[in-house]
């Protein structure tokens, strides 16, 4: 070791070494660190580039990347996670690098594998020669729950079953890639791979350029064009492709919405589709529109409750028949999950020789299918060296490592193997390779699995030059899955020379398509946008009223009996926003304390909490309809909502409420300025205006109930309606009931007034699609006109005089009428446009 040198003399001549403290475990392959702890040749450029950035810069870019992922709402839902769904996606700063020669071997192997699996499926769902001639043991297929008998004999276009195939690869200590699993029915991860690329190429532009990384754009385009080309010949000019998702609770829902948007397909759930005349249609506001191709992210047995799993609530009744009739193509084809299991994989080398006359290029680890008596005997005798896997899907069942079992567990496993030998496959254990993962200060070794993709593109196939690399949660856990934590890496296939830049942004044709798609809004989506508008507005009303209350409580001149405070407490209790006991006289310090308690994280005012979680839930169901910026605002809103534990001052609460109100205003701004004026926007805005109108009538009614201190409510009422300034400018006076009511209810020029909402609603409703047989004007139009006329003919000077019994009877009557009309509009719109929500029974 050299003697210490003062920092000022060290200078740039003694650079920081990325791998100086990196110690991968011995005896396994490391993806970056080669012999003598020097980087492998193809990693030199990356390592040097990161070293040039320096530790500090790398860390700050890492923070920025994490922020970008959070802001973009890239999430992965973890089933049964007490912290709820929507766990942020984790991306490492260091990509996995693959050199060109090795990549071309993987590429060739993927093309071969895709051909092989398609050939096998075409046989098993057709003549079944493989079973009759003894190439595959019949029980391996016939006992397999993934063999879907209704799919037998159904022809698929070009005999292609697997339109997108994913293969999980692991690198063994001899540096050879081996197949861990095939994902043949609805593989996930291609969307995350794309998002990883976008984030990392922005975070490390220098390294990305210097490494000559192959681009992904062309692959997605080939995938999209391949799917589009599956439409029947007579519809090829205007094919309609949808992405069928199980819904927002699915673990990879983020990517369903993301890919639908990127590929230009409509995101649908099962209930959005219906089968008529053995064709599939999407239920839109304007009626049924035929669907040609379904890219499904639903497991195949769930796709049709009529012919497949009867208990599926996610599928489309009759889909199987539409497929059989050849009027729709499902990708991947229903039934293709059959080739996913470990049992089929064990027979692939022999099948490849038989069917393609070639050696299998990517071999699995050595495998024994216990359905063969000899293999079973071997497995029983060698449990310690083997990994035992289920023969058949679901692949979610975890493999068992023989060496970690107790004697008792081994005994139990042996009995299980003997009882149902065909259910098990044993493989030699592959010691996964490691790669450095950045932890903020330095790097540590983690095991990894690489998922690569090949897509059918018409007559040919396209391989994604890259993939999704997943790393283990800790270096000693031999299983890598996102469900168990762990993270991901971008995968860079490096090339010798510069790469032609292909924009990842969608070409113009896609944005044109989106315009058209908006006209075909599924009615479920319209319904959700309507309620998103209502909940956003409700959140804003609540936040504003709470802010008024907090402002009054913290005002210096405030005392317990101040009429404004009494009135506000009354109104908020009436509107269900705070618990009734706060109205009890308790002295200002006690009230302050109680209020701040309300705002701690666990007891945040219930109304606002429910409201914001509804906003979150509904927004996630229409995620593909919201811009990235809008989504970022919604994320910000959630973050601003969460107050820290510990002592909370009312001043902090005020800050948070102010931020939330600003977030909500930003959302409205995005909605007004950036959302195309399609049907989606119409429903969002109608929902918002109905809610704002209802809030106005409720607020006035509760304020009148505070009589005689209702006068004290006028100021807060103006504030909540964001109309204080207008009032001051207009009247230069203390608030009086009649002019306040006029301003917040009847004034058509005040964008917060009820009359303004009604006029806006009338204009919006007029633009809604309507049934040719619908009466004109429609019922909702007549109801809105009724409310407008009632409001216009109201004399607020007269209405503001209390009646003989000191009650505002006539004003209350007007409020009742308006309230009934507004609810009527909401109900008729629901009935006319969203009536898809019928129950499914069988």
């Amino acid at each position, binding site marked *: 070791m050299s003697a210490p040198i003062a920092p000022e003399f060290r200078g740039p001549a003694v650079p920081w070494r990325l791998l100086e403290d990196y110690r991968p475990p011995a005896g396994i392959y490391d993806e970056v660190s080669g012999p003598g702890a020097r980087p492998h040749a193809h990693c030199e450029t990356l390592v040097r580039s990161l070293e040039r950035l320096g530790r500090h810069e790398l860390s700050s870019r890492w923070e920025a990347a994490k922020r970008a992922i959070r802001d973009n709402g890239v999430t992965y839902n973890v089933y049964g996670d007490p912290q709820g769904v929507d766990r942020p996606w984790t991306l490492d700063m260091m990509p996995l690098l693959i050199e060109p020669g090795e990549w071309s071997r993987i590429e060739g192997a993927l093309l071969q594998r895709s051909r092989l699996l398609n050939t096998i499926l075409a046989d098993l769902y057709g003549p079944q020669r493989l079973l009759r001639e003894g190439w595959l043991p019949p029980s391996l297929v*016939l*006992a397999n729950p993934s063999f879907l*008998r209704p799919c*037998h004999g159904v022809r698929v276009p070009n005999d292609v079953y697997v339109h997108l195939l994913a293969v999980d690869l692991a690198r063994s200590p001899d540096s050879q890639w081996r197949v861990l699993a095939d994902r043949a029915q609805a593989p996930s991860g291609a969307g995350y791979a794309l998002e990883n690329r976008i984030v990392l190429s922005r975070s490390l532009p220098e390294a990305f350029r210097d490494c000559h990384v192959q681009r992904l754009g062309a692959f997605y385009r080939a995938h999209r064009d391949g799917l589009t080309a599956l439409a029947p010949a007579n519809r090829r000019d205007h094919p309609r492709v949808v992405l069928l998702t199980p819904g927002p609770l699915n673990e990879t829902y983020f990517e369903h919405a993301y890919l639908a948007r990127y590929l230009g397909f409509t995101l649908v759930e099962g209930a959005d589709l219906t089968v008529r005349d053995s064709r599939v249609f999407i239920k839109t506001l304007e009626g049924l529109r035929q669907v040609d191709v379904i890219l499904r992210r639903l497991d195949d047995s769930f796709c049709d409750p009529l012919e497949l799993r009867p208990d599926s609530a996610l599928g489309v009744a009759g889909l199987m028949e539409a497929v059989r009739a050849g009027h729709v193509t499902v990708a991947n084809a229903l039934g293709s999950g059959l080739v996913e299991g470990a049992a089929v994989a064990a027979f692939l080398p022999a099948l490849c020789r038989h069917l393609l006359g070639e050696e299998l290029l990517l071999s699995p680890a050595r495998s024994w299918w216990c359905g063969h008596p000899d293999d079973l005997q071997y497995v029983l005798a060698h449990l310690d060296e083997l990994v035992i896997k289920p023969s058949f899907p679901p692949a979610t069942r975890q493999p068992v490592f023989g060496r970690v079992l107790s004697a008792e567990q081994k005994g139990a496993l042996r009995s299980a193997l003997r009882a149902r030998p065909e259910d098990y496959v044993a493989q030699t254990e592959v010691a996964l390779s490691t790669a450095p993962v950045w932890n903020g200060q330095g790097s540590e070794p983690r095991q990894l699995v690489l998922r690569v993709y090949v897509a059918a593109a018409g007559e040919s196939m396209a391989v994604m030059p890259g993939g999704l690399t997943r790393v283990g949660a800790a270096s000693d856990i031999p299983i890598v899955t996102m469900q168990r934590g762990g993270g991901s890496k971008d995968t860079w296939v490096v090339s010798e020379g510069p790469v032609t830049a292909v924009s990842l942004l969608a070409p113009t044709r896609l944005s044109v398509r989106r315009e058209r798609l908006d006209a075909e809004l599924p009615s479920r989506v319209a319904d959700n946008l309507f309620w998103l508008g209502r909940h956003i507005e409700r959140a804003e009303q609540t936040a504003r009223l709470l802010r008024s209350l907090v402002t009054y409580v913290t005002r210096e001149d405030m005392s317990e009996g101040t009429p404004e405070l009494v009135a506000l407490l009354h109104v908020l209790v009436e509107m269900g926003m705070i618990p009734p006991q706060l109205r009890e006289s308790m002295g200002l310090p006690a009230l302050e304390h109680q209020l701040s308690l309300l705002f701690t994280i666990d007891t945040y005012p219930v109304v606002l909490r429910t409201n914001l979680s509804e906003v979150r839930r509904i927004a996630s169901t229409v995620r593909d309809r919201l811009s990235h910026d809008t989504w970022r605002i919604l994320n910000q809103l959630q973050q601003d909502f969460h107050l820290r534990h510990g002592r909370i001052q009312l001043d902090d609460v005020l800050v948070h409420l102010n931020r939330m109100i600003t977030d909500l205003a930003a959302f409205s701004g995005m909605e007004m300025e950036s959302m195309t004026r399609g049907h989606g926007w119409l429903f969002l805005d109608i929902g918002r205006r109905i809610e704002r109108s209802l809030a106005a009538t409720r607020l006035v009614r509760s304020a009148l109930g505070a009589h005689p201190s209702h006068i004290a409510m006028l100021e807060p009422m103006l504030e909540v309606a964001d109309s204080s300034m207008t009032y001051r400018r207009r009247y230069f006076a203390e608030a009086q009931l009649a002019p306040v009511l006029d301003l917040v209810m009847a004034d058509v020029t005040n964008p917060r007034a009820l009359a303004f909402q009604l006029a806006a609603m009338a204009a919006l409703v007029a633009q809604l699609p309507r049934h040719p047989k619908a009466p004109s004007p429609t019922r909702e139009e007549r109801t809105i006109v009724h409310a407008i006329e009632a409001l216009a003919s109201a004399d607020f000077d007269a209405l503001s005089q209390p009646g003989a019994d000191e009650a505002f009877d006539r004003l209350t009557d007007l409020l009742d009428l308006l309230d009934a009309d507004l609810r009527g509009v909401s109900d008729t719109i629901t009935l006319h446009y969203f009536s898809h929500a*019928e129950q499914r029974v*069988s």
Partner: protein
Amino acid sequence: MQNSASAEVTVTYEVVHTTRYTYSEAVSVSHHVARVKPRVFAGQACLRHELQIEPVPAVMRSHQDYFGNAVTFFIVEGAHKTLTVRAVSTVKVGGRSLPVFVHTPPWEEACDYDALPLDAIDCLFESASIAVHDTVAGYAHPSFPPGRPLLEAVADLIHRIHADFTFDPQATTVATSLRDVVTMRRGVCQDFARLGIACLRSQGLAARYVSGYLETLPPPGEPRLAGVDASHAWLAIYCPGLGWVDVDPTNNMFPSTTHVTLAWGRDYVDVSPVRGVILGGGQHSLQVSVDVLRA
């Protein structure tokens, strides 16, 4: 043990099978599949078949399923509160001759998978509503001592089921598990068919589920059989050298001209006569009636 009729006898039946759904609220659209056309095979001919559906479906398409049964898919559009599916068929059923049971091969020979055809291998494993567990294996075991002739063992098994279990339409539903059926010792023909299949599969034998009908009025002097007022179910065992042999545990017999075959598969869910998914409808009720008369 009854073993009716000789191979030369044939009987022709007129069958009317009506399935009627009634809904408390209107159904806007419904999708159905029906397997109500009698199968055609060596022992049976379908001389006439008509499917009458009310309201008239917007679409009706037919195909053969994986097991060779005729399936009709149909969609009823437009609000409806009842749906009637009526299958009218004329079927000629031939008598079947069986070998003397003690001359059938030892049951273990039927467990040699390499010698079985694919459609038998298909019926070796658990299926949707037929779980094969220790309870059924334990029940089956006494009928299968080593080397016993296959059909003798099967005859013994269904004789025991018939003796041990009570026919009771109130005891079970289509969702009742086999474990519960064994515990209660009660059930209907579907339950006894499932139980018989599970017992046979637990011994490594191939057994399939058969749906069909029984003659409504027996010939003079013979007893009326159980399960005649609705569709019936029994099972078939694969017997090397003989092929599939029908067995009716509910009536403790090897069916011949008394049984009209509709469809077969691994399980009830493969052959359920009418199945549907409806939108709307509220509460629904189902009535099934079957008439099987000699022509």
